[in-house]
């Protein structure tokens, strides 16, 4: 039934409701089509992005190994107060776990997990398990007989602590802190602090790289935006060239250029700027990382800058000039403020890309140019301490989100524009 409109033109509440129903029915088809169009992407992102991130968040506190593979002793230790060595029943539970774990070949996993807490735990457990024939009642005596450490109360404290299914120990580690067997948390000795330093270095080097890309990208974008289309397109190809060459090829050419016996050093020696003995180390350190990453990430700065600059009509600068502004004033007070959205977009892009970068620092960064990403990769691939890798990853994620929040508070989201 059609909606009747009375002479005043107002609709009664019921009629309004019906009108809304009519409207949503007529829009339903559009909505369904929109949902169908985005559905594949949403599914893809769910599987490849949201789920892994959730998984990482869980892994950073998840602690199943000891809980799962040494169930008896974990259960028995629940009632232990930690004041003195446990009694026979707990030793018996441990003996059971060791023997069963050896048979099922799962004891190694629990041992590896315990080793993260204190080195030596792995050999203690696997070593004891290997001598399973010697494990006989009374178990307390027999186990201490096999390995003296079973008589150490700290060993038991660690097992009890690590037996909990959820742990903060990866985060404690990631913050360069240590937890004593009694649960006291303190900073690790100066020399053992790695991660916070790496985080700090990652942040400031990423800022430096972002700054360098602005410094180098702004004039280039300015030129590109002011040139006629045909010339600009050719130059744009040159700008995009780094995108089209393999990352490894680019990185190795930086090595060829920058190494101590490389082209740049040869040139400097030949020009007499430096002596042959005093060749400059420009790669396998922080300089190498900054140079190579600035080069690699430059297009991410130039593209948004260029597209924003393209939209700034030349009449603004002309207007400023006609109003009496010098070239510089017109540029600084009229042109630059209008390109801020482009600088913002480029800076966020470059900063977030570089803070999580890992392949280039790994190849040319050496010791001093390494990023936190390299440490995460190390724990993923080498030490297989996924919990710690996840904790570091979560910290990185939180940091990026925090920086983004701070940024949008200061600059404003609406100031980010890609053209």
């Amino acid at each position, binding site marked *: 039934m059609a909606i009747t409109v009375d002479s005043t033109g107002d609709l009664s509440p019921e009629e309004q409701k019906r009108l809304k129903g009519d409207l949503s029915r007529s829009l339903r088809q559009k909505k369904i089509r929109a949902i169908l169009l985005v559905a594949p992407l949403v599914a893809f992102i769910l599987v490849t992005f949201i789920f892994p991130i959730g998984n990482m968040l869980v892994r950073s506190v998840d602690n199943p190994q000891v809980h799962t593979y040494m169930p008896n002793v974990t259960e028995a230790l629940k009632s232990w107060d930690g004041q003195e060595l446990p009694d026979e029943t707990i030793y018996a539970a441990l003996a059971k776990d060791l023997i069963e774990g050896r048979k099922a070949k799962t004891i190694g996993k629990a041992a590896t997990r315990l080793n993260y807490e204190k080195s030596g735990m792995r050999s203690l457990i696997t070593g004891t398990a290997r001598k399973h024939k010697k494990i006989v009642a009374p178990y307390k005596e027999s186990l201490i007989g096999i390995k003296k450490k079973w008589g150490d109360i700290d060993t038991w404290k660690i097992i009890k602590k690590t037996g909990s299914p959820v742990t903060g120990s990866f985060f404690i580690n990631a913050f360069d802190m240590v937890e004593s067997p009694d649960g006291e948390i303190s900073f690790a000795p100066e020399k053992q602090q790695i991660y916070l330093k790496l985080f700090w270095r990652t942040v400031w080097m990423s800022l430096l790289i972002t700054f360098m890309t602005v410094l180098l990208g702004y004039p280039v974008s300015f030129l590109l935006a002011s040139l006629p289309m045909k010339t600009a397109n050719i130059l744009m190809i040159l700008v995009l060239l780094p995108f089209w060459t393999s990352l490894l090829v680019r990185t190795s050419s930086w090595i060829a250029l920058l190494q101590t016996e490389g082209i740049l050093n040869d040139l400097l020696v030949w020009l007499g700027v430096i002596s042959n003995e005093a060749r400059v180390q420009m790669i396998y350190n922080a300089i190498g990382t900054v140079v190579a990453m600035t080069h690699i990430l430059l297009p991410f700065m130039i593209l948004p800058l260029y597209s924003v600059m393209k939209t700034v009509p030349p009449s603004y600068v002309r*207007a400023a000039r*006609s*109003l*009496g*502004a010098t*070239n510089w*004033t017109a540029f600084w007070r*009229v042109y630059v*403020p209008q390109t801020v959205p482009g600088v913002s977009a480029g800076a966020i892009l470059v900063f977030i890309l570089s803070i999580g970068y890992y392949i280039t620092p790994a190849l040319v960064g050496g010791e001093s140019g390494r990023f936190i990403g390299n440490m995460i990769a190390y724990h993923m691939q080498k030490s297989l301490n996924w919990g710690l890798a996840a904790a570091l990853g979560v910290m990185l994620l939180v940091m990026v989100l925090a920086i983004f929040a701070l940024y949008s508070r200061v600059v404003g989201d609406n100031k980010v524009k890609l053209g």
Partner: protein
Amino acid sequence: MANPASSEAYVRFDGVQKSYDGVNLVVKDLNVDIPRGEFLTMLGPSGSGKTTSLMMLAGFETATHGDIFLNGRSINNVAPHKRGIGMVFQNYALFPHMTVAENLAFPLQVRKMGKAEVEEKVQRALDMVELGEFGNRRPAQLSGGQQQRVAVARALVFEPDLVLMDEPLGALDKNLREQMQYEIKHIHDRLGVTVVYVTHDQSEALTMSNRIAVFEDGRIQQLAPPTELYEKPENAFVAQFIGENNKLSGKVDALADGICEVVLDSGERVKALDINTDGAGTATTLSLRPERVFLNPAEGQCQNVFSGKAEEVIYLGDHIRVRMNVCGHDDFIVKVPNSSDKKGLAEGDTIPVGWSIDDCRALDA
């Protein structure tokens, strides 16, 4: 090069040429004197060189030949910001990241003016364009007409003697455009500044200007006050470009006392004022305004009388537009005032049409 006559002209273009590509001249030999306080409009189709001429005066383009004088001084090598010329741009060019007041304060701040003085002048300029309350708004929060007024106020706030306007009303709708034409004209009258105005809209030019320079093909075709331009076009282009025009082409047959006899291509003989012909035997174009053609002229009222057939009659309220077939041209337009005593003219009617010698001008071919 300082010519004694240049003391009269506030702005002077002296043999100015401009080429962008080194092959074609966009502006060919431009010579204009603009006295102080004049409202001069450069009118012409796009690509005729009018905007280029304005940009050369503003300093954003350099002349490839010739001199531009401002107040008797050559400004060829003076940077735009030192010329002290106010300018209103086609798209207003209001700085989007500044408020209206900041926009207006900009030219004063770059002149290192004191804060109190800046505030006072900004407020006065805003009041002048009746936007006193809008100082804290951003340009994007204003309507097109308000933005236009801000742009005008900004070009005037630092009290320049010369203001350039580059099609400033192009983006406005028709009603607003007409209203703004009057406002700009009134501001000009009140402040006495010299204005050089560029437009392709002839009614705008006719409304506002003291003099109009009609540009075509890089040259000024005619430089004259509005009435003269419309009543006495000097060549076929101006006649055609300004207002509506009936064009009849033919050959000059005889010349005497400023009056020539022209044989039209269709054979009829027409008497016309000899304005711009190359003498007997040469081709010419006759120009005749539609409102100067009479239907059923009284005996002796017109020297030229022919028979015409009404092809199309369009009622336009204040007048009736009739498209007729006269002397072999079927695009001959006659405007008949809609007076109460006129009887209706029907399509297909054949009636005599006539016009006087004074309204018919023989121009270049």
